[in-house]
């Protein structure tokens, strides 16, 4: 990290922690939404950007995180901030089982298999009325100290910063470097003796665990855990965010999450057909901006420096 990066990071933190004193409640909620999606996208990008694994069923672990908090609250009366600690472990456990099968295949096969497993989990949550509440969802109530929007904002922001920092450390660790080697050349990684499947399985579980935290933060915000949190259309969101922001940059998914959450808020205000507009935005991004927004920005800065 350079001096400039550090300054930028400190500035971002000051703005993030100062914002609640300037924003109204409705804007606070959208910003909380953004933080949660940022964590979801960054954790997901450990798979897509770092390890080159395209999972299309990641919403399952996000949803399981939400249901962990909701079920612990409604069945055992465990408060949400305590239940949140269980979310990554439960999500990770499910990912361990699914991943054990899924890492046996690669590429598009892996994408379709994770998609199928994700839908399986979605079906179970939908169908198991007595335990999950089926499509009625499961209500969640925050304790009094978390109810005010501003308090919840600080809570979510802090949890998200801690989690993203851990993901940062993981992706810069030897483990993260090994994942990059697998992405670049799987065959070579096998030849130099990396147990590729174990690395991929670990990445899958870690990414799922942090997605579980994101889901666990989502449930108290909406005061509900819904089956749609596990649905495959939800799985597309972190992929789109990561690709839009730039999968080969660490903070790209954060930029992508900001774009999607705030643009979605703006578009749904004036259009009944937001997906139509979103579809075209994605189409243009994919065709013309393959490196994502942050990736393109880095290229541009590099070319400027190189030119002068």
């Amino acid at each position, binding site marked *: 990290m350079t001096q400039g990066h550090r300054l930028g990071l400190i500035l971002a933190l000051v703005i993030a922690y100062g914002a609640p004193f300037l924003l109204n409640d409705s804007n606070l909620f959208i910003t909380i939404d953004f933080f949660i999606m940022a964590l979801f996208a960054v954790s997901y990008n450990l798979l*897509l950007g770092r390890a*080159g694994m*395209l999972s*299309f069923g990641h919403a399952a672990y996000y949803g399981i995180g939400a249901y962990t908090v909701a079920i612990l609250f409604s069945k055992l009366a465990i408060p949400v901030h305590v239940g949140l600690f269980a979310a990554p472990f439960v999500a990770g456990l499910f990912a361990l089982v699914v991943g054990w*099968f899924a890492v*046996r*295949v690669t*590429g*598009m*096969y892996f*994408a*379709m*298999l994770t*998609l*199928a*497993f994700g*839908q*399986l989990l979605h*079906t*179970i949550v*939908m*169908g198991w009325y007595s335990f999950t509440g089926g499509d009625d969802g499961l209500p969640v109530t925050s304790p009094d100290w978390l109810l005010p929007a501003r308090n919840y904002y600080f809570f979510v922001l802090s949890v998200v910063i801690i989690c993203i920092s851990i993901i940062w450390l993981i992706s810069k660790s030897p483990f993260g470097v090994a994942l990059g080697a697998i992405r670049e050349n799987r065959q070579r990684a096998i030849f130099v003796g990396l147990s590729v499947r174990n690395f991929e399985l670990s990445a899958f579980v870690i990414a799922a665990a942090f997605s579980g935290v994101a889901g666990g933060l989502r449930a108290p915000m909406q005061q509900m855990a819904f089956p749609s949190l596990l649905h*495959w*259309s939800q799985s*597309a969101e972190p*992929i*789109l965010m990561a*690709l839009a922001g730039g999968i080969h940059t660490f903070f790209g998914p954060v930029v992508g999450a900001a774009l999607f959450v705030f643009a979605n808020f703006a578009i749904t205000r004036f259009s009944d*057909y*937001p*997906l*139509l507009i*979103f*579809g*075209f935005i*994605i*189409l243009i991004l*994919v*065709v013309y901006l*393959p490196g994502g927004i942050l990736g393109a920005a880095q290229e541009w800065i590099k070319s400027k420096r190189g030119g002068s």
Partner: protein
Amino acid sequence: MLDQILIQTLSGVSRGMVLFVVASGLTLIFGTMRIANFAHGSFFMLAAYLTYSITQFVGDKTLGLVAAIVILPILVACFGAAIESLLLRRISTRPHQYQLILTYAITLIVADGIKLIWGRSYHTVDRPAGLDGALTILDMPFPSYQLMLIVVGILIAVSLHLMLTQTRFGKTIRAAVADGEMVGVLGVNVPRLFTGIFALGAGLAGLGGALAAPVGSISLGLDSSIIIESFAVIIIGGVGSVMGALVGALLIGVVQSIGILFAPKIAIAFIFLALCVVLIFRPQGLMGRAS
């Protein structure tokens, strides 16, 4: 109980036949171009809605459906060819996730486009004269249209098989499934071949949509249910194998129909169970070749 299971099996075969028509297109695209084409479900849904409009426009339910079954495969094939040559080809050298996301963007556009044109309410298409009743099999009524679907499905399977084994285009497709690079080296115009395959696949999805329109109701969400099932079919059957798609589709159709008999709420879970079993014992799919 036993005759109930037999009837459900027959109904599952009928369901599986529609699924086969759609999934066979998907497996050809996936097997040659290595694109997990999400838009395939949208092609199917679009064709189902267009079938509704065509039958409304023609006025006669038999003639209308026949017109839809003739026109829509061609129309949807053209739509597919346009998407392939205008969009997918531009990013053909990039990692596959970009192509997948591109086709996903198309599903969003088509879904909201359909909502814009046809509205949120569901539509139904009448069954054609002579096929709107039910036959009695094992003392139980069975819709004759669904019986016709089984016959049509077999015909399509046979013609697809003949096309793949007897025509030059078909042989080139099979060669591209086996070794895509080699086909290019041997002088085949690969971009044109891919456009052709994508159009063929889209056309099959369109045909499936037209055939399925009179069964059940036409509603938003049709795209995601068929695409998930089709993905399951081609994993079970083996990527690139049309016969595998037939086996996989029939398996899924029957498993699901019998599942409805025992556990209606989670019938769809049986698909994934079948998928897991196949993947444990035969990861390359039932008819797929181990790589």
